[in-house]
């Protein structure tokens, strides 16, 4: 298995090189000009060109790419002309901010989803099942923007329980997490319910019950293990959410995350910031998916790492 992991890591490097090329090309293909964006609207073409020369944007694209990749290999992610600071530290702080939100959302989302999904799955067709599914469907259908604003108006403005925005401890993270939690919990609830229903229809469950094992033990000791695999899959996609951040939540709640940073960088064509964020996100995502695949094999011995 270790050999397979190493081979996977080598493919990861190739993947990241491909991502770096795309990340380099995309903002340039989108049009726009960083030099023009940094100067006032009345700047002449000569001044814009002088700014391009200062920032090295007048060089051929290949040369710019090589310079950038050389910097990456040295741990230098470049310089953000918009924020007037090195990209690496800027990106890292924003990533941590996004990661905090995503981890909390993932944990609480599943703390809600697992019991609800199990209850719904074990009471298929009952009023409990209908109620849980109704809540889950509403949660998934609810537009996130609307929900975020609703949370602000109700919990912050009307009740005053939480601050409207800002960076800090748990109370500042509560509303942003709640907004992301709804969608995640809803989706996982439905997934777990379906998984539980399918698992309970399996022959081994019938046989286990025939041997006199109680339903509670069957649910928690036998069926739950099989139902947890989708949760692990969800972990993989949560990593994606973590590295990507949620632009909507971060913008509305003023949470300085990496998603908001990427959008702002794209807006002014802050090339090095955009490239580095995309590359960083891809690296985290690839490693995260690899970790998820390894976790599969740990949770379920029947699954072979490949």
């Amino acid at each position, binding site marked *: 298995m270790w050999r397979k992991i190493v081979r996977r890591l080598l493919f990861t490097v190739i993947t990241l090189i491909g991502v770096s090329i795309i990340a380099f090309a995309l903002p340039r293909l*989108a*049009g*726009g*000009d960083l030099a*023009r*964006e*940094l100067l*006032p*609207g*009345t*700047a*002449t*073409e000569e*001044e814009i060109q*002088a700014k391009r020369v*200062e920032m090295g944007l007048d060089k051929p694209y290949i040369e710019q790419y090589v310079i950038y990749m050389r910097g990456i290999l040295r741990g230098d992610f470049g310089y953000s002309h*918009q*924020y*007037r*600071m*090195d990209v690496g*530290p*800027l990106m890292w*702080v*924003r990533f941590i901010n996004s990661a*905090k939100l995503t*981890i*909390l959302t993932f*944990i609480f989302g599943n703390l809600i989803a697992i019991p609800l999904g199990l209850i719904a799955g074990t009471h298929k067709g009952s009023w409990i099942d209908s109620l849980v599914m109704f809540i889950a469907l509403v949660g998934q259908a609810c537009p996130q923007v609307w929900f975020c*604003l609703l949370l*602000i*108006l109700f919990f*912050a*403005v009307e009740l*005053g329980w939480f*601050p*409207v*925005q*800002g*960076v*800090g*401890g*748990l109370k*500042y*993270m509560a509303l942003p997490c709640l907004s992301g939690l709804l969608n995640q919990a809803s989706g996982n609830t439905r997934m777990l319910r379906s998984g539980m229903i399918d698992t309970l229809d399996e022959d081994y469950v019938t046989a286990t019950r025939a041997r006199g094992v109680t339903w509670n033990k069957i649910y928690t*000791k036998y069926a*739950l*293990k099989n139902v*947890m695999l989708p949760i692990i899959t969800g972990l993989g996609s949560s990593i994606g959410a973590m590295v990507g951040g949620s632009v909507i939540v971060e*913008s*509305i*709640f*003023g949470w*300085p995350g990496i998603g*908001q940073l990427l959008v*702002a960088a794209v*807006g*002014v*064509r802050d090339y090095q910031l955009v490239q580095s964020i995309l590359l960083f996100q891809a690296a985290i995502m690839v490693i995260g998916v690899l970790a998820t695949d390894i976790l599969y094999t740990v*949770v379920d011995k029947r699954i072979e790492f490949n």
Partner: protein
Amino acid sequence: MMKKFLCMALAAMMIIFTACSGTTEPSTNPTGADASSPTANQTAKSGANDEEVVIRMSSNISHITWDSMQSHQVHCPDFAFGRLFEMDADGNFDPYECEDWEVPADGMSVTLTLRDDIYFTSGNHMTSKDLQFTLMRPVNDRTMISARTYSSLENVEIVDDYTVKLVMNSPWPTCIEDINSLPVLDSAEFEKLGEDAYFAKPSTAGPFKIVNFDAVNSSYELERFDEWWGWDVFENPTNVDRIFYTLSAEDTTRVSALRTREFDIIELVPFDDTELLKDEGFQVLETIENRHIMLGCNYAGIFGNQDLREAVSLAINRALIVDTVIGIGWPAKWAWSQGMASNPNSKGYEYNMDKAKEIVSENYDGNEISLLTSSAATARVNELAQAIQSMLMEAGFNVKINMMEEATYDVMRSSGQYDLAIGVFNCTAIGEAYKECTEIIGADIFATSCDDEELFRLCQEVNGNCDFESRKAAEIAVYQHVMDNFGPYLYLYCTTGIKACNDRVDINSMNVDASGNWNILHLQVS
């Protein structure tokens, strides 16, 4: 296995709860700022320390930069760096850091005399050397954001410890206004630290000093600078001790944070929220922004035809746009804001849809017209574009809206890839139209392909004209020509800035200058 998984999950939660607590030790972030940011997030609400007056402010700023003080978004430099002059609501300049100045009639030099009692937060004394250093930066570095403004400046000579003489290579009529936008830098500290390190925590000479400038989390904290020269000079100086300033991009969030008293003052309040805030007892301040929304006409296309430009102007009901689409502002009656370059006798822009239809039917070939706009141009730009499209289509034009993000819009406009373009122009002082006459119109910065020789001749009469009355007359002539010929710009309306504050703030002490900016000098907070 499940027990192990649950134990791991519980352990992870405990670690996260610990990590997320609000009592972490300050850690270094790239700007050297405190990562547990001392911004509006402090657990203490405004005024929690009974001896300290604290205010928290917010605006919709994309990021914090020192590059320009000309934006309404940037107050930090103003509060921290101070200014050479103070501008009043009528656009007149009064002594501030510069206690005296002399501008000869030919505009080829300006002599400035600083006060002798100004100190930076580093402890260094502000002298003519600092002023020379500051003013020569854009001359020596042509890629600085404000370098174009200083193109007339040749050299800065030191006369004595507090006096400098600016020597021009061409007349610079708006010198005083332009140099007022550049904060005086502590040259010794700047040379010691370098540009980026200096601006991470600058040495400043204004009433407040920078305690924390967190560019990463888009917030900053200022603290009263007790050694500031103005505390004993000005009557009723502000009683504020500490300022927290935080980005809040979303309008609803910003307004909600004011309602929960997380902020004391907010800017860029949407018009729709003003009644709600007033009903809840908040104070709302509407100020002239001196931002002009205009429609640029590309002479290279069908709008080289003056009749069609006239039809566009006739078809647009400016008053209706302001009343029903934007909600606030002033319909343009003249090709500029109220102020020195305005003509009070102007008849303004006529709205006449029937006449517009008649002109269109006689002159228009039916080809699709591109209406270019930026999604970030101004408030409700989407609705504005749709209203213009609707009005023009009623007149008989075939209009397609090209809504672009700002970067793409800038490229398309500068390369003339449009027929009509919604644009915004900010002027820095009320009524001063010098830059628009010489740059926007005179130099055709926005690529309208205008070939009106008479217009350019009139713009040249403004260019370098240091005689106030003569320049004013020349600017009026330029705009009269623009109005008579319906191009290259059709002015739509002038915007209003809305600020709001809670009852802690004495709104009457928020002095608003001629540019619509308010300064903190006399701000009183309970």
